[in-house]
């Protein structure tokens, strides 16, 4: 447990730092969403109609932004070799790093999303659902994304390859995430959508550590 927390704490420090993932991810997210009112015009009905989709797509892309560095920096300076020799299974090492990635990207991104939802004239009732959906959905993005990051270790164009590998796999998160918000906006129950997001997260949480560990092990050879 001490080893798990040590990795999370170290990656949080690196992530919140000046060269960390958090600042770029948040700035990209805010900027990408605020471009839409400028692009499609300020009509409230149109903005309210597209708000959920815009926020979710921007969140998806923002989460991809720093993923290629998740294991790469550790591989470049030799840390990954030693993490693989740490007294905890490689799957848990991967889980610790992924948790830190989510805490520095997915979590702040989810917390700022309600403000952007107001900017896009989203229904007030739908905003808490958006927050809940993002909090349930973004950990899946980090987990599935980490598989892509581990698979592209050592590849020259990792930054491009990770989204290409990962985005098709996280389409369910996008569909149910947007579905939950739209259901709430139309006064329907968002419950089923949120449950499906939760189920997807449970599956990703159970399976992706094994996939990440296998991919990292290949990169160590």
């Amino acid at each position, binding site marked *: 447990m*001490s080893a798990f927390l040590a990795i999370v704490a*170290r990656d949080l420090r690196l992530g919140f730092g000046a060269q960390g993932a958090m600042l770029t991810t948040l700035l990209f997210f805010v900027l990408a969403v605020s471009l839409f009112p400028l692009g499609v015009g300020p009509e409230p009905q149109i903005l309210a109609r597209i708000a959920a989709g815009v926020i979710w797509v921007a969140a998806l892309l923002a989460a991809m932004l720093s993923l290629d560095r998740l294991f790469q920096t550790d591989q470049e*300076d*030799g840390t990954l070799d*030693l993490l*693989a*020799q740490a*007294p905890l*299974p490689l799957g848990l090492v991967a889980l610790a790093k992924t948790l830190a990635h989510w805490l520095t990207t997915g979590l702040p991104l989810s917390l700022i999303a309600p403000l952007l939802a107001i900017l896009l004239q989203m229904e007030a009732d739908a905003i808490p659902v958006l927050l809940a959906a993002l909090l349930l959905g973004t950990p899946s993005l980090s987990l599935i994304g980490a598989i892509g990051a581990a698979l592209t270790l050592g590849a020259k164009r990792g930054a491009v390859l990770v989204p290409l590998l990962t985005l098709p796999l996280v389409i369910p998160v996008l569909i149910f995430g947007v579905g939950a918000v739209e259901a709430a906006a139309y006064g329907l129950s968002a419950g089923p959508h949120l449950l499906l997001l939760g189920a997807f997260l449970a599956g990703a949480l159970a399976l992706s550590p094994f996939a990440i560990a296998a991919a990292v092990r290949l990169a160590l050879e």
Partner: protein
Amino acid sequence: MALAVEQLACIRGERQLFSDLTFRLAPGEALLLHGPNGSGKSSLLRLLTGFLPPAAGRVLWDGVPALEDAEVHRDRLQYLGHQDAVKSQLGTGDNLLFWARLYGLDPVAAVKEVDAALEAAGLQRQRDLPGRYLSAGQKRRLALARLLLKPAALWLLDEPTNALDTAAVAWLGELLAAHRAKGGMIILASHVDVPLKDARRLDLPEGVLT
């Protein structure tokens, strides 16, 4: 506690680096790997850590195949590769503190151990200096200081003298001697002379043991 390597072979990128490599290592013994660039010294070390699967042969620990149970095997060894694994954004002390916590030391013991390791490496004055301001030799010393944070029977060291000055090489010699005096084993790859007394020598790629 003994390491035995039997008829080990390694293939990298469809090229056979070495084959039929056999040696044993008893407590307190050291093995120096010699050979030209690309003869498989680093690959042999990575193979013994379990990163690389051997193409043929076995690695035995006390007569039991060692690489199958990775979780047991990794606790027996400390690996030092070409790279120093120093995070440029973290301070020198924090770099070591991370490894101490990772190796399971509790917070109080970790700080104490890190203090001792920094002093041994001659890096107390750099304690709060971020890793990016360290010289190549200081980074190497920091990487060597990490060896003190986890007791392990077998040290696998890849070119540990890289970038070290003469004083640091002498310190490395003391480290190695102290480890062997406690019954530790060392396998070390190096091009230059390392202060290692009565070490056996393995010439790669032929696998001649002297």
